[in-house]
C-alpha cells in the first residue's frame, strides 16, 4: 500500500529522451491508398485556429464515373447547438452547459477555395444525407468539372481554415494552450457498394454515437506552430526546424484512415522501443508517475495482440495523456495515436489506466487496420476491442483481479464487461447491430460490453484456440479493408469448417439472436426432487449448455442441453438421489444474466453467509463508534 502511494506521488520515470524517429523499414504499401493527403497547417494559438493548404489524391476504385465528391467537415458539428451532433440533445454535455458558451468557444471548418489539377475552381455545397437538417454543415459535396473515371486518380488542392471549439468531445482547445486536432481536415467519404449492391457515397453527417469511416491513404502533414508548444501526432517525425519563435515539423504516415495531432506547452515526452515499435508518450508533468504504467500497458498490447491476432502494422504509436481540464479529449483512438486519461493519485492496484490504454491501443487493430464502418457497425470495432481488452488485462494481471484489487475487493476486466451488460436496467433494450446514431443510452453496455460477452461466450463454446484462429484469419483477410458483419461471419463459418467442429447449435442463429435480436440468456435450476432435475431458460437465447449433476455418494454426470425450449426435465435412473446440479459450471455461457440461479444443492454452504453477515455487523460497529465521537 505504502509502495503504491509513493509511486503515484513521486515520478519514478527516468527514461524520457528526445522526440522519436520512426523505423522507416516497415512496409509502406499495405493498403489500396484510395485517399491520400498532404496538409500544411499554420497554427495561430491565440485565435485557436489553423490555416491550411491541403492536397488530396483520390483514386476511383469503383466501376462508376464520379461527378461529385463528398467530404466530412467534422468540425462544423461544433458550430453551435443547431448542428445535428448537438441538436435535440441535452445542452449540458459532459458536464458543460453549452448554452453558456461564448462565440469564441465554438468551432468550425471552412473551405475557402478548392481547385482540381487543371486549376478549375470547384463549387461546394453542404448536404444532409441523414436528417436534412439545413443547419448542419458536417458533410460537403463538391461538384467536379472533370469527372473521375473508374481506376483514375485525381488530385485536388484546397485552402481551408479550421477553428477549434473549446473541447466538447475529442477535438478542441483547453486551458494553457492545449490543442487536440482530430477530425480536423476536409476528409473524403467512402465510395462503396451499399447493402443493395449499388455504388454510392457513404459519408454520414457527424452524429453522436459515431466515429470513423474513411479510406486508407498516405499522409504528409507539416505543422507550423509556436515553438513553446510540444507537438505529438499520428505518424513519424520526418523533419523539424525552428525559425523566429516558430517550429515547423513534418510528419509522415502510410496506410492510415485518419491523422491527428496534439500540442501543449508542458508535455513531458517519454520514448521507448518495444518489438521494433517506437512508443512515444506525452504526459503533463503532474501525471509523470503514470508514464511507466502507460508504457507497460502498450507493451502488453503489442505483445499479446502480436501473438494472438497479428503483427502490429505500423512503426510507431503515440500515447497522449490530456490534462485534466480537457479530459473530454481523452478515451479515444486515432490511427497511430491514442488518448488516455488518468487522475493524480490513482493507485497501482486500480488498473483503470492500463485498461483504458490497452483498450485504445487495441483499436490500432480493430479500427485503424480492420477499418470497419464505425458509424454503422460500431460493435465490429468497440466490441472486439473490449473482448481483447478483457483478455489482455486478465492475462497479465489475473482473471478475477485485473481491473482492481483493493483491500480484498477485486474485479477482473472480463468480469466487469459482463457486469456492464448484465447490469443494464434492461439488458434486452435493443440490438447491437444498429447504426450508432440510433442508440439512446445503453450504447456502451450493448456495443462494448454485450459484444465482448457474445464473443467470450462463442469462445467458451468453440474453445480459445479455435477462436484465436477465427480472429487471426479475419485479421489477415480483411486488414486494410472495410470488413462488415457478413465478412466476419463468413470467416467464422470458414474456420469452423476447417476444424470440422461439430457444434451442437446453429452459429448463424446465435449471431442473429445476439447481434440483431434482443433475447437474453438466464439458465435456472428450478428444482431437484430425488432423481429428477428441472431446469429452465428464462430468456430466449438458444445456446447449448452443460449441466453437471452430482449424486449422493459423489458420482458425477454431465449432460448437454441444447437450450431449445423453455423447460427441460431430466430423470436419472441412479439408485441415489441428486445432491446438486450446476448449469454451466465453467461459466462458458458468459451471456447468462445470473449465475446464482444456475445451481442448486441440498446442502447450502452457510460459511460465507456467516462471514459476510459478520462483516455487515462490523460495519455497523464501526459507524456506531464514529457517530459516538460526533455526538
Amino acid at each position, binding site marked *: 500500500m505504502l509502495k503504491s502511494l509513493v509511486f503515484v506521488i513521486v515520478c519514478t520515470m527516468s527514461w524520457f529522451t528526445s522526440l522519436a524517429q520512426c523505423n522507416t523499414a516497415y512496409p509502406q504499401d499495405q493498403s489500396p491508398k484510395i485517399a491520400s493527403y498532404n496538409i500544411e497547417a499554420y497554427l495561430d494559438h491565440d485565435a485557436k485556429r489553423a490555416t491550411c493548404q491541403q492536397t488530396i489524391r483520390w483514386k476511383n476504385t469503383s466501376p462508376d464515373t464520379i461527378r461529385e465528391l463528398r467530404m466530412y467537415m467534422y468540425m462544423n458539428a461544433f458550430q453551435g447547438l443547431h448542428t445535428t451532433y448537438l441538436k435535440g440533445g441535452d445542452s449540458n454535455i459532459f458536464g458543460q452547459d453549452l448554452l453558456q458558451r461564448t462565440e469564441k468557444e465554438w468551432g468550425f471548418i471552412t473551405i475557402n477555395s478548392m481547385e482540381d489539377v487543371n486549376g478549375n475552381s470547384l463549387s461546394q455545397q453542404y448536404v444532409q444525407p441523414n436528417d436534412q437538417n439545413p443547419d448542419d454543415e458536417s458533410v460537403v459535396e463538391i461538384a467536379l468539372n472533370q469527372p473521375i473515371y473508374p481506376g483514375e486518380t485525381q488530385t485536388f488542392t484546397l485552402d481551408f481554415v479550421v477553428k477549434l471549439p473549446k473541447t466538447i468531445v475529442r477535438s478542441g482547445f483547453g486551458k494553457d494552450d492545449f490543442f487536440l486536432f482530430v477530425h480536423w481536415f476536409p476528409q473524403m467519404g467512402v465510395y462503396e457498394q451499399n447493402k443493395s449492391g449499388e455504388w454510392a457515397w457513404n459519408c454520414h453527417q457527424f452524429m453522436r454515437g459515431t466515429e470513423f469511416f474513411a479510406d486508407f491513404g498516405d499522409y504528409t502533414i507539416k505543422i507550423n506552430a509556436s515553438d513553446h508548444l510540444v507537438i505529438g501526432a499520428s505518424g513519424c517525425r520526418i523533419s523539424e526546424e525552428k525559425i523566429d519563435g516558430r517550429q515547423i515539423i513534418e510528419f509522415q504516415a502510410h496506410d492510415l484512415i485518419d491523422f491527428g495531432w496534439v500540442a501543449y506547452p508542458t508535455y513531458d515526452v517519454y520514448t521507448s522501443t518495444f518489438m521494433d515499435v517506437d512508443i512515444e508518450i506525452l504526459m503533463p508533468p503532474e501525471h509523470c508517475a503514470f508514464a511507466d504504467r502507460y508504457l507497460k500497458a502498450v507493451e502488453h498490447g503489442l505483445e499479446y495482440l502480436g501473438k494472438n491476432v497479428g503483427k502490429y502494422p505500423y512503426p510507431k504509436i503515440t500515447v497522449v495523456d490530456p490534462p485534466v481540464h480537457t479530459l473530454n479529449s481523452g478515451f479515444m483512438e486515432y490511427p497511430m495515436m491514442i488518448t488516455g486519461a488518468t487522475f493524480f493519485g490513482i493507485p497501482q492496484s486500480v488498473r483503470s489506466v492500463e485498461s483504458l490504454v490497452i483498450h485504445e491501443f487495441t483499436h490500432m487493430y480493430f479500427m485503424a487496420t480492420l477499418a470497419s464502418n464505425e458509424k454503422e457497425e460500431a460493435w465490429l470495432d468497440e466490441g472486439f476491442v473490449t473482448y481483447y481488452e478483457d483478455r489482455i488485462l486478465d492475462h497479465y494481471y489475473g482473471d478475477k483481479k485485473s481491473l482492481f484489487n483493493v483491500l480484498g475487493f477485486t474485479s477482473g476486466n472480463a468480469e466487469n464487461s459482463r457486469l456492464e451488460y448484465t447490469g443494464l436496467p434492461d439488458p434486452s433494450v435493443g440490438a447491437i447491430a444498429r447504426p450508432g446514431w440510433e442508440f439512446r443510452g445503453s450504447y456502451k453496455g450493448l456495443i462494448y460490453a454485450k459484444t465482448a460477452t457474445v464473443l467470450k461466450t462463442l469462445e467458451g463454446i468453440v474453445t480459445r484456440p479455435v477462436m484465436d484462429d477465427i480472429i487471426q484469419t479475419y485479421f489477415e483477410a480483411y486488414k486494410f479493408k472495410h470488413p462488415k458483419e457478413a465478412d466476419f461471419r463468413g470467416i467464422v463459418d470458414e474456420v469452423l469448417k476447417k476444424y470440422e467442429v461439430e457444434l451442437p447449435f446453429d452459429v448463424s442463429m446465435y449471431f442473429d439472436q445476439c447481434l440483431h435480436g434482443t433475447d437474453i440468456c438466464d439458465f435456472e435450476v428450478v428444482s431437484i426432487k430425488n432423481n429428477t432435475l428441472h431446469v429452465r431458460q428464462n430468456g430466449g437465447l438458444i445456446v447449448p449448455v452443460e449441466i453437471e449433476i452430482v449424486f449422493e455418494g459423489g458420482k458425477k454426470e454431465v449432460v448437454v442441453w441444447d437450450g431449445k425450449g423453455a423447460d427441460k426435465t431430466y430423470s436419472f435412473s441412479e439408485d441415489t438421489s441428486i445432491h446438486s446440479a450446476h448449469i454451466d459450471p465453467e461459466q462458458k455461457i458468459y451471456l447468462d444474466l445470473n449465475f446464482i440461479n444456475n445451481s442448486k444443492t441440498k446442502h447450502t454452504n452457510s460459511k460465507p453467509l*456467516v462471514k459476510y453477515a*459478520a462483516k455487515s455487523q462490523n460495519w455497523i460497529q464501526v459507524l456506531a463508534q464514529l457517530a459516538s465521537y460526533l455526538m
Partner: protein
Amino acid sequence: MSKVAHVLKETILQWKVVFIVYISQFFFGLILAYSMYAEMYTSYDGSLALEYLAKGFDRTVFMDMVNSQNEMFSSSRGLAIILLIVYCFMSVLLQGGWLYTIRKKEFSIRSFLRGGWKYYFPFLGFAGISLLLFLLFGGGVGYLFTSWVGDPLMTFSSEKPYVLWIIFLVCLYALWTILVWSWSVTARLHYINQPSFIKAVKLGFDKVKQNLGKYIAIGWLIIGIHVFLMFLYYWIMGDRGASSWYIVAVGIIFQQTIAYSRVLLRGFSYSLVEDLNPIPTE
C-alpha cells in the same frame, strides 16, 4: 511518562464500562447481521455460487445478486440507517455514564447507569451543539470552496492542486472534529462538577483554548490509532475466504477484538481529556 501510565491504568479500570458499550454496539450490529444472513440465505437459495464466495470475494456473485435481488439491499440499508439513528441517541446515554465514572473515579456499573440517566438530557444538548458545529463548519467550508473554485477540474490547470486541496480540507475538517470533540468532552466533564449548562459550555471553550496543543495531539493520536487499526484489520484479514468454520471463526474473533480495541481507545481518550481537566479544588 507517569501521567501516561496513570491514564493507561485508569483505562484498564474502565473495562466493565468499555464492555457494556462494546456489547451495545455488538447487539446493534447483530440485528443487521441477522437480517443480512436471513436475506442472503433466501437469495442464494442453495446456490453453488456460495462455493465461489467461500474461496474469497467474488464480484460476479455479489453483483448477480444485486442485479437480481436489489430490494434485499435496500431493506438492509434502511435497517442500518434506523439502527444508527437509534444508536446515536443511545450513545449520549452511554457517554454520560462513562464520563461520570471517569470523573467520579467510580468504575462500577451502578455509577455508569446512574450517570447515564442523570445527565442524559443536558448531554443531549451538548451533542446537539457538537453536531451543529460539525455541520456548519462542513457546510461553510464546502460552500466557500466550491464557490471560490467553481468547477475545479476546469479551473485548475492540473488536478494536483485540487487533490492537495481536498487532502488539506480533510485534514482541516479532522482538526475541527478534534476541537469540537475536545470541547464536547471537556464541557461535559465540567458539567458533572457544576451543573450549569452555560458555564460548562464556556469552561469547555476556555480549557480547550488553554491546552490547545495537548488537545490537538490527543486528537491526532486517537485518529492515527483508529486508522492503524483499520489497516491492521485489512492487512491481516484481506479476504481470506470462508473455506472452513475455523477460518470464519478466526475472522470474527479478530474483527471483534479490533471492535473492542476501538471502544477501549475511546475510554483512553476520555481519560486523557479528564487528566487535562482535574476537578477544581474548593
